[in-house]
């Protein structure tokens, strides 16, 4: 019944619009305004441009200021401070250009709307002007590019020797974390070694892998360089840690990396944001299939002492699952056992 009523309503509305449309067409024919170069609508459109400029301008400023704290994510890494700075410098430069060009673009239609009494001025070119507005944007852009390039070079420079290594492996649809253990060197891996109990495909014949361990979350120390070694097991993924201003694709067959220095512990951030639930998060930003939107991992930034303590408490792959050592050469096995005992 409602459907029927709505249908009738829509039909009525459409026929009314139709009538109005026909009437206005006929009226314009009778008035002869369709013969004129520019009808009364010309003025309406000219005024609308100005109204649009003012209306959307107010809306933009109001919302940008009101929501600033919402869309500006707190930053928690050293390089993030610099890239944020670059972002806001660029915002200032482009913002000015945006405003000036739009004011001109929407004021000109009002100011120079058609008038039979006036004739447009014949002004086909001016090489001086062209050179000015080629050179000025060129110089400004060069400034932006060079500052961006310097930041980029620093960010992508090789990680410091002492950086804490964390391996992040993406797969459909989660991340897995591996730590290199006491030697700070990750053991070899091979995707053909992947089994249900060895999801990383760690090659335990490599001595470096003996003290490797896995963790349900990324734990890293504040104020010290951290190197993410990133890889993928099946399709492309991308590690995105928004608060760290960090993003790098995870590519099957081609390990990637990203190093950074976290500047605030999770606890400090909780106090700063007054949010006791706050966690640093990793999300996936490369389309990877059905569960793309659910690849979450938590990063916990702690004080360096707490980090060392946490490290010493972790159990290696082999401790967690001694079965993994089966089939290894006895020499390696013994080495593993010695190391395990030594750790205890």
């Amino acid at each position: 019944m409602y459907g029927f009523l709505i249908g009738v309503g829509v039909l009525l509305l459409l026929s009314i619009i139709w009538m109005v449309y026909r009437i206005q067409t006929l009226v314009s024919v009778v008035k002869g305004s369709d013969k004129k170069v520019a009808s009364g609508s010309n003025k309406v459109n000219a005024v609308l441009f100005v109204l649009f400029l003012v209306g959307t301008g107010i809306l933009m400023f109001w919302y940008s200021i009101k929501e600033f704290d919402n869309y500006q994510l707190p930053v928690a890494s050293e390089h993030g401070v610099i890239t944020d700075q670059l972002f806001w410098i660029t915002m200032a430069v482009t913002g000015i250009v945006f405003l000036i060009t739009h004011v001109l673009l929407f004021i000109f239609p009002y100011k120079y709307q058609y008038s039979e009494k006036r004739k447009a001025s014949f002004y086909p070119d001016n090489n001086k002007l062209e050179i000015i507005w080629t050179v000025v944007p060129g110089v400004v852009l060069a400034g932006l590019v060079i500052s961006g390039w310097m930041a980029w070079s620093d960010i992508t420079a090789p990680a410091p020797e002492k950086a804490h290594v964390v391996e992040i492996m993406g797969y459909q649809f989660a991340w897995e974390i591996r730590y290199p253990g006491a030697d700070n060197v990750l053991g070899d891996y091979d995707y053909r070694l992947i089994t249900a109990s060895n999801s990383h495909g760690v090659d335990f014949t490599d001595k470096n892998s003996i003290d490797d361990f896995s963790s349900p979350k990324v734990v890293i120390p504040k104020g010290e360089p951290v190197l993410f070694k990133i890889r993928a097991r099946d399709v492309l993924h991308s590690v995105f840690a928004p608060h760290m201003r960090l993003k790098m694709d995870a590519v099957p067959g081609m390990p990637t990396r990203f190093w950074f220095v976290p500047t605030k512990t999770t606890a400090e951030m909780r106090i700063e944001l007054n949010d006791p639930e706050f966690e640093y998060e990793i999300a996936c930003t490369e389309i990877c299939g059905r569960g793309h939107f659910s690849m979450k991992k938590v990063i916990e930034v702690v004080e360096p002492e707490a980090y060392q303590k946490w490290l010493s408490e972790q159990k290696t792959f082999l401790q967690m699952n001694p079965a993994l050592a089966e089939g290894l050469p006895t020499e390696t096995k013994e080495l593993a056992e010695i190391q395990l005992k030594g750790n205890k």
Partner: protein
Amino acid sequence: MATATVANHDSAAHDHHDHEHHDNFVTKYIFTQDHKMIGKQFLITGMFWAIIGGFLSILFRLQLGFPGMDMSFLRPILGGWIDEAGALDPTFYLALVTMHGTIMVFFVLTAGLSGTFSNYLIPLQIGARDMASGFMNMLSYWFFFLSSVIMFISLFIKTGPAGGGWVVYPPLSALEQAIPGSGLGMTLWLVAMTCFIASSLLGGINYITTVINLRTKGMSFSRLPLTIWAFFLTAVIGLLSFPVLFAAALLLVFDRSFGTSFYLSDIYIAGEALPNTGGSPVLFQHLFWFLGHPEVYIVLLPALGITSEIIATNSRKPIFGYKAMIISMLGITILSFIVWAHHMFVSGMNPFLGSIFMFLTLIIAVPSAVKVFNYLTTLWRGNLIFTPGMLFSIGLVSFFISGGLTGIFLGNSAIDIQLHDTYFVVAHFHLVMGSASFFGLMAGVYHWFPKMFGRMMDAKLGYIHFWLTFAGVYLVFFPMHYIGIAGFPRRYYSWTNFEFANMYTDLNMFVSVAAIITFAAQFIFIFNFFYSMFRGRIASLNPWRSNTLEWTTPLHPGHGNWPGEIPTVYRWPYDYSKPGAEEDFIPQTVPLSATPESNLPHEQELVKLELEIMKEDEEVLVANESKH
């Protein structure tokens, strides 16, 4: 009017024995070789795809704006993709996003825009009877049609259409185990795109040949309307970049079907280690973006060309900096080939390469800036007439600025780390490429409709359409900048899994509502288009009082465009409001010698030369006549 047509036909038949033909329905409307009809075929097909592409976006905007809403009412169309609880399937969400992108970029803004206007306008504006090869032109459309049919079918298959994003990065697009859309759906996608590339190449070769060889007497390159320059350069870009996409697709086909490892390496999926080693997914990205980035200019340049023409005409002023405009377009054309890797700053490629591409990318902003300043100066002290075409052109300039400026953020690799693959990118390219090109398409349709169908579109409906769409586009895409700065990733079915993105439900809802209204507003245009085609007011021969050649043809030009001789061109196309001239426009066909009152000093010098040439021509003509 009827008599006029008959008369035209008679004279055409009389003067052009080679163009005498008796079209039946099939040769006139279907397998036609007339560039005008082929242009219209591209336009109608493009409009069909725009509605499909727009509708798909509404479906996923419903999901994003109203997460958890009951979508059972969509089951008649989407069937099993709506689950028992009335929720949209997350895999199909990705398919929707993928197909929206593919359809809009290739089928609407490449074929619908370039296909329509290059075909329609090139012969008319350069003074040619038709394209260099009418047959290839026909093939071009029918390859596009075949491609359309295949892509359309892929929407309805059981495993769904391709779902790996419009960029179809492998391994996702190569492995059926990874996403169901990478099965038959992806196969159809690849076949459809192959046909599409064939269509583009056939068209492009034709456009280039026609512009170079078939210009009428006097139509030197320095007298070409900017539209033609734009179409010409677009065709060059397409011809050089589409084959690379074909190569990328071909290698993908090999990886998918014949066990090669061009893009695949070290993959463990669905409990099984695949044998592929040594391939590189990044290779595909390089190949894809070698087309993908020039593609941006393939859709944008024609729109900018159309805008240049319409803004000059309706400002009643010459386009400011005609030569600077051409040089900018040439600059964009060349630079468009050497900036592709700015899509890949965080793909894992060598960061040094990132530095190089950052420098190259920001260089391309300079010619774009020059174009904007030239448009603004063209408006300055003009006598502006706001036809719907003019409104859409001004809208285009606005989007070009808004979206272009955000490109400066994204082209800066240090800033791109955070913004890459967030909604900031979505906002950026939808404004600068999507909406700007779409507005170019709309401007072109409103402006050349009288030529296409001999009738006027209703201006008032056009105004309503413009203002709803213009405001709508900003209301949809501007808020996405905030969402993007906040770090919301693209292609997410929902953001509730993440604390950092668990906000802005209100803004997303707002965007969705704005999108629905904007989409609905397009039906005003659809109505106006088809209604005016049959019932619109009959157009005058030159309704916008424009200078270019197409307005010298009869109201309904036959195949061959001009009855009698093709007009000769004596001047550039932008002699608007010339001091001393009686009217505020002087068509290109008016000799300089006929307008001594308005000639500039250097033109006055050319008059003598012009008169000599005209005299020679007359002698040749007389000699020819006497031979008959």
